[in-house]
C-alpha cells in the first residue's frame, strides 16, 4: 500500500472544520450505523445500570430490600466516615505517584523493543507477561518478595542496610508504595503495547532526517518518537489516571484481601466492594460512594483535558 509523502505526519487531534467540501455527501444516519453496536452495548450494560446506581445513592436500599428515599443522608454519612477519607487520600496519592511513571516509562520500554527480529519479539512477549498474570499470582509472588521474612528483607539485612526487617506490607505508607510498585510492574507491558502501535504510525522519513542531522538514538527518541506519540501519551494519561484512582487488585492482594493494617490502605474501589457486595450489601451507601468517585474522576479528567488544550494553543 502506498502512502503519499506527508508534510505533517502526525497532526494533532484537531477537529475538522464543519461542512466538508467533498463531492460525496454522507447520509445523516451513516454515523449512527457505525456507532450502533458500540453504543448499544455501552448504553445498555454500563450507562443504564449506572443510572440505577445514581437512583440508589439517595435511598437506604440494601441488596435484599428496596430502600426509601433519604435525600443526601448517605453523602452526609460519607463525609463523616473515617474510612472514606482514608480511601480518598490513598486513591488520590495513587494517581499523583503512578500516572507520571505510567506515561513515561512504557514509552522508553517501547522504544527499546521496537523493531523487527526474533529477539526483540521475544522480549516484547516476555514484557507482556505481568499483564496477563492473574492478580492472585501477582499477589502471591510479591508478598513472598516483600514479606517481613521475604527475599527483599533478607537481602537488605545481608547487606547490613537495615537491622530490623522493613514493613513493606505492614507500614501504612510503605504498603501503599509497594502496591504502586506492583501496579507499575504489571502495567508497563500494557501501555508499552499501546505505544508500540502508535509508534508504527510515525513517518520513517522523520527518523532519517534526524539521522542525517547527526542525531543519536537518544536525540531521535526525544525529538521524533516522543512528540510523534503525543496524543497517545495524553490518552494513556487519561486511562492510567482512571485505573490508578480505581486501584483495587494490587492493594487487595498485597494486604491479603484486607484493606491493610487497620484498614489504612483501603482505596475507594475497595470501599465500594466492601459496602456494596455480598449478602449484607448496603447498595444505597455503596451507590453514594460510587457517585462521589465518579464525580472526582470526572473532575480529574476535565482538569487534564483543560491542561492539554491549554498546552496545544
Amino acid at each position: 500500500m502506498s502512502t503519499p509523502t506527508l508534510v505533517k505526519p502526525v497532526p494533532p487531534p484537531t477537529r475538522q472544520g464543519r461542512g466538508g467540501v467533498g463531492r460525496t455527501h454522507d447520509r445523516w444516519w451513516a454515523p449512527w450505523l457505525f456507532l450502533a453496536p458500540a453504543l448499544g452495548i455501552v448504553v445498555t450494560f454500563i450507562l443504564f445500570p449506572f443510572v440505577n446506581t445514581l437512583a440508589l445513592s439517595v435511598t437506604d436500599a440494601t441488596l435484599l430490600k428496596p430502600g426509601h428515599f433519604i435525600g443526601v443522608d448517605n453523602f452526609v454519612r460519607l463525609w463523616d466516615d473515617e474510612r472514606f477519607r482514608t480511601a480518598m487520600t490513598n486513591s488520590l496519592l495513587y494517581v499523583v505517584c503512578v500516572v507520571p511513571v505510567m506515561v513515561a516509562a512504557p514509552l522508553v520500554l517501547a522504544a527499546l523493543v521496537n523493531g523487527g527480529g526474533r529477539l526483540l519479539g521475544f522480549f516484547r512477549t516476555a514484557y507482556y507477561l505481568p499483564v496477563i498474570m492473574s492478580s492472585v499470582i501477582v499477589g502471591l509472588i510479591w508478598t513472598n518478595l516483600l514479606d517481613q521474612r521475604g527475599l527483599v528483607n533478607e537481602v537488605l539485612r545481608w547487606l547490613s542496610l537495615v537491622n530490623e526487617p522493613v514493613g513493606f506490607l505492614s507500614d501504612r505508607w510503605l504498603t501503599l508504595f509497594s502496591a504502586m510498585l506492583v501496579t507499575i510492574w504489571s502495567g508497563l507491558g500494557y501501555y508499552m503495547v499501546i505505544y508500540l502501535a502508535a509508534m508504527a504510525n510515525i513517518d520513517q522519513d522523520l527518523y532519517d532526517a534526524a539521522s542525517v542531522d547527526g542525531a543519536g538514538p537518544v536525540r531521535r527518541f526525544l525529538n521524533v518518537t516522543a512528540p510523534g506519540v503525543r496524543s497517545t501519551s495524553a490518552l494513556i494519561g487519561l486511562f492510567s489516571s482512571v485505573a490508578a484512582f480505581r486501584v483495587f487488585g494490587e492493594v487487595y492482594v498485597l494486604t491479603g484481601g484486607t484493606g491493610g493494617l487497620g484498614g489504612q490502605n483501603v482505596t475507594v474501589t475497595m470501599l465500594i466492594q466492601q459496602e456494596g457486595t455480598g449478602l449484607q450489601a448496603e447498595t444505597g451507601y455503596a451507590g453514594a460512594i460510587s457517585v462521589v468517585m465518579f464525580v472526582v474522576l470526572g473532575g480529574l479528567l476535565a482538569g487534564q483535558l483543560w491542561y492539554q488544550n491549554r498546552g496545544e494553543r
Partner: protein
Amino acid sequence: MSGKRVLLALPAVLALSLSACGVAGGSSDDSDAQSTVSGEVKGEISFQTWNLKGGYEEYFNGLVKDFEEANPGTTVKWIDQPAEGYQDKLSADAAAGALPDVVDVGPEAAFTLASAGMLLDLSKTDAEAEANYLPKAWEANHFPSLGGTYAYPWYLNTGPSFFNTAVLEKCGVTGELPTSYDALFTAGMTMAEKCKSDASMVGRLPAIENFGSYGVPLMDEAGTTFTFNDAKGVELVNHYKELFAAGGLTEATLNELQTGEVDAFKAGQVGWLPGSSYTLKDLKETAPKIAETTEISPQITNDQPNMYIESLAVSAKSENTATAVAFAKFATDRENQLAFSQQAAIFPSAAGALEDEYFTKDDGTDETALRLESAKAVSEAIVYWPAAFSSKSVDYLREQIALAVLGKKDVQEALDESVEYANGNLPQ
C-alpha cells in the same frame, strides 16, 4: 428501521423488564408467603453446595440417586459452586429472587436471607425435626429476633490446637502445652523475649468467636444488640496489645486472615495454630518437615470449645417446597451425615451420629486419635459466632482491633465502634 430507533428501543424494553424484577433489591414483603409445606414430594429441585465437588462427587451423586429412588417422580439437580466468590454468587441469585431450592449456607448467610424473607421457617413446617439434631447445632440456626429456625444443621467442624514444638523449644517454652488463653499469652510473652520477631506464638488477631470462647458475652438475650465491648472484651484485646508491645506479634500478623496464619505456621514462623480436623493431613502433604515436630493438644478456650457449622436451607420461593424440605432432611439425616463425615474430615450434626464407632474406637493412628478427640470436643462445642454478626462486621472488628493494638486508638473506643457498626448492620 434506522439505527437511531434501535438505540432508543433497546434500553426502553430492558428498562421495563428490569423494573419488573426490581433492581433495587429482591422483593421482600412476602415473608409469610409459605409457612407450611404443601404438595407432594414430586418434581425437580436444585441443590447447591459450596466447593464439595472436588473429592466428594461420588458421595453426592449417590445421595441424589438414593433420594430419587426412595421418592419416585423426583429429580434433584446438584450444583456445586467453586471455592471463590460464593457470597457474590449467592447474593446475585438472591437479588434476582432465584435461590436454589436447597442451598448450603452458614448461619450468617442464613440469617441475612431469612431476614429478607427468602428462606422457609423450618420450625413451622416440621416441629419434630429439632429432635433429630444436636441441640447446639440446631440453636445455631435459630434466630430469636426473627422467631424461627431457618436451616437444617449439616456438617460441623472444630479442631484442636497445633503446636510446633521445635519453635516452642527454640524460644524457651517448655513443659505442658497451653490450653487456656492465660497460659497461651504467658507462653507468648516468653517467646517474645527469647525470639523477638523470628518466631511468635500467635499468628492472628482474635475474631468474634475468640471473644466468645474467652468468655465475653457477645449479644443480649433477645439477639438485638451486641455486647462484646465490656470489660472482659477489653481485657482480651489488651492481652494482644501487650504481646505486640513485647514483640510477640509481628506487624504483618495484625493484618492476617486465616489462610495467612496457616501459611505462617507452615513456614515455621508461628508456634500455635488453631486447626481443624483436616489440618494434620494438609500439614503432612504440603509441609512435611513442620508436621514432624507438630503436637496436638485440646483447643484453647476458657469455656466450651468453639465449632463452625454449615447448614441446608430451603428457599421460600421454591416451587416444590415439599420435595425441597424432604431432600434437605434426607441429606442431613443420621445415616447420610455419617457417610459424609467418613469421607470428608468433618463431623455430623445429626443426633446420635457421634456415638458411632467411627468416632469412638481408637485404632492407634494419629489421624484417628485426632478424630476421636475432636469428636469429643464437638459434642460439647458451641457455635460462638453469632449469625447476626455479618462478614462486614468481621472485617470492621479486625481493623479496629489492629488499630487498638498498634496504639492508634483506645481499646475501649475501638470495641465501642465495632459494636456500633455491627448493631448498625442488623436488619431493621
